[in-house]
């Protein structure tokens, strides 16, 4: 085991949480509910950015984003708890690093949209097609979140080093 994982697993908080047997299944349940909120809320907005459902004003399609962010928050917290409880499962795993990479891609993509293109959302009338820049952002977001899901679920099976 790598020194960092060995140290973290020896800490009191990691040990206490690991010995709380119901905590891991409870966090998993929350993690999967959070996944559905995130994919549902963000996926809906992404589809509109891609140019689907044009009768929906782009600004209105954003209404589910607070729920997607809540889902991400649930998963960030429960994911951090998994990491604290068993870092040796994640630190050497290429699937976990790929998952983290795609979370960063999705996050930076969303921030790019908010800071540069977001103000153009309000100017877009109903029934209007979205500009190519919106389609690219929506496509990257949809792909990145499903990649996060893919590498998360495949985590026990690929790139574990054994």
């Amino acid at each position, binding site marked *: 085991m790598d020194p960092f994982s060995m140290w973290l697993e020896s800490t009191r908080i990691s040990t206490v949480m690991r010995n709380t047997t119901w905590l891991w299944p409870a966090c998993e349940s929350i993690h999967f509910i959070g996944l559905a909120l995130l994919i549902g809320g963000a996926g809906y907005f992404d589809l509109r950015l891609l140019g689907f459902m044009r009768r929906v004003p782009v600004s209105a399609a954003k209404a589910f984003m607070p729920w997607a962010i809540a889902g991400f928050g649930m998963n960030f917290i429960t994911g951090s708890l998994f990491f604290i409880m068993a870092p040796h499962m994640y630190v050497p795993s290429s699937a976990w690093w790929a998952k983290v990479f795609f979370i960063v891609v999705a996050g930076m993509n969303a921030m790019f949209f908010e800071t540069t293109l977001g103000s153009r959302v309000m100017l877009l009338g109903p029934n209007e097609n979205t500009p190519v820049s919106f389609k690219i952002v929506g496509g990257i977001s949809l792909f990145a979140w499903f990649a996060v899901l893919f590498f998360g679920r*495949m985590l026990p099976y690929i790139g574990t080093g054994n």
Partner: protein
Amino acid sequence: MHAWLEALQNSAFSAWVVGSDTIWAYPMILTMHTVGLGIVVGAAVVIDLRLLGVGAGIPLSEMERMFPIFWVGFTINLISGVMLFVSEAADKAAQPVFLLKLSLIALGVVVTARIRRILFGGNARATLVPPGARALAMGSLAFWAGAIVAGRLMAYLK
């Protein structure tokens, strides 16, 4: 019944699903089941939240577009779920939390189909949230969340 489940569990297909070294067997089927979960429950959540007052700026009629997406996710999970079930048929059929999961999914599907019917069935083209739709939306959210929890706990409550 039990002999039949045993035969399924001992089939060559089952041996490939659970015994094969390739990640294209069990891990990939399991991952497809999670992709389908994100799509089916994600679509249900969007419909339910709209009925509960979130996104009031979205024309209610446009929610009709979510139902085909819901059924795509459901189909992915029906196929991947049957493959996962077959590989452990005799064990799963006797697992109470699995039967609970199936019951919650059945309730979720019935409620979602009912929402579809009161909004868009026949000549109905709802523009305002019909009475009773909010209760159905809350039921849907509870059933799908319950199905997810029961599904996760299948790994623990043998």
